[in-house]
């Protein structure tokens, strides 16, 4: 990966890359698996140097690359590279999740350094032989997160601010079952499908 690409990546993550250049960059990244891997490594190293847990701009990059890739077949070699990466649990909306395998590769952009150190005497997390269903897994993770927030709040008091955070989660993905029911049934039928006041 040359310096020009590095500069473009940095500018994109900072939101400073002109639109026409951003389009070209995304197209190149969507077509070149090797470049995606190099970009992932470059961004991960930068994040490590800055001691940043994540980058909002990098999230945007992931989503746009995912959208650019769409349903295009992806090199099978990309599958295994991310078996032990840290994934940000993000809203599904906006990400082209049809290309589930591609997303696995893109998650490499959010590697957490120093985490993939399996011990010898503990069960080792492994990549599945088949193609993992990212949609299902992300949805399950979100539900786990929400249930944990609810359960841990029962240990003490609920917090208004914490509830704002978990509701933001609901706002983004609509994963509160009560809201799903209301959406599916429509407002007029929600009274029948949900416990309405």
């Amino acid at each position, binding site marked *: 990966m040359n310096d020009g690409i590095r500069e473009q990546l940095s500018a994109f993550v900072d939101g400073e890359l002109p639109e026409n250049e951003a389009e070209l960059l995304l197209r190149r990244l969507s077509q070149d698996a090797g470049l995606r891997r190099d970009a992932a490594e470059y961004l991960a190293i930068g994040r490590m140097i800055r001691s940043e847990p994540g980058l909002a701009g990098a999230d945007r990059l992931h989503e746009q690359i995912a959208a650019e890739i769409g349903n295009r077949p992806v090199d099978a070699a990309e599958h295994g590279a991310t078996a032990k990466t840290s*994934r940000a649990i993000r809203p599904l909306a906006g990400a082209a999740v049809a290309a589930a395998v591609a997303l696995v590769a893109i998650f490499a952009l959010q590697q957490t350094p120093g985490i993939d150190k399996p011990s010898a005497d503990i069960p080792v997390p492994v990549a599945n032989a088949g193609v993992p269903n990212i949609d299902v897994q992300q949805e399950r993770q979100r539900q786990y997160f929400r249930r944990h927030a*609810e359960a*841990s709040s029962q240990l*003490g*008091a*609920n917090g*208004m601010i*914490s509830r704002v955070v978990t509701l*933001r989660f609901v706002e983004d993905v609509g994963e509160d079952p009560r809201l799903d029911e*209301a959406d599916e049934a429509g407002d007029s039928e929600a009274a029948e499908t949900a416990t309405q006041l």
Partner: protein
Amino acid sequence: MRMTRSHVTAGLTVAICAAFFSASAQADRAPLDWLNSMNAAMRSTNYEGTVIRMQDGNAEALKVARSVKDGVILERVVAQEGNGLEIIRIGNEVHCIMPDRKSVLVEEWDEQSALFSKLPSSEMRIGNEYDVAIVRKERVAGREAILLAIRPHDEYRYGHRIWLDTETSFPLQTQLLSDGTAIEQVKFADISINQEIHASALEPSYSTEQFTWLRQSSGHQGTRIETPWRNDQLPAGFRAVGAHEETLAGSDEPVTHILYSDGLASVSVFIANNSGDLVAGPAYVGGSNSFSVERGDYEITAIGEVPAMTVEQIATSMQQP
């Protein structure tokens, strides 16, 4: 009654002594006294102000107000960014208004509920897993505050810093710390304490008559169970505080949910049948980390507001029945 010079002198002496002893008592208060008075202040203080929440390099502002009238808690939080989310509390009933969804979620909260939730309680085992210390006085939101540091004894949990209003013990700022770095922060940018709060500051901004009102369905917490799953390698201080069998939305398959706590931090472990779809390894949401691992016919996910190494250790050391 006519005031004599001796009356005035005596009054002044009493006032000076009271001020002196008050200041002295404040300086001498033990950290645990501050925590106890903080918990009382969170339930009794009326306030109105602007809170800034910072996480992952992002900041959002929330307008907050709270008042107790005729023994009923009235509270409102309004997000200043995004879709205009509002939370209105009337007694123990809480309305989460989501204007973009034209929906109101109605929930029942207990009387202990307050603005902040992740603050230590008197049940926290100070001295075992954490130490608490008074650091210094600082100013927050224009008020004098005392900074308390809650420092974990190991790397399996986060530290906390809390700035308490010296006059009322109300928390003006909190930080969640990982290796000395704030990964989540909530602070008042401005606040008025124990002043009269106008009724409009506690009412919803939206007319919700046409909204869909949805009440938290009963039995959502699942069924309490005696689980055969165990963990002999939990980080020090963590213990199981509950186990439930739950069915999550969109799935018919029950999941075992075990909740571990050290009195301040908590970790949930979810055990489900192996779907074959598991993307094993770590993930995160803000200050919460998770770690997923396959174990035979099961997939295990640990998640909590603890460092990544903690959820990894807990997830990977769960033992099959």
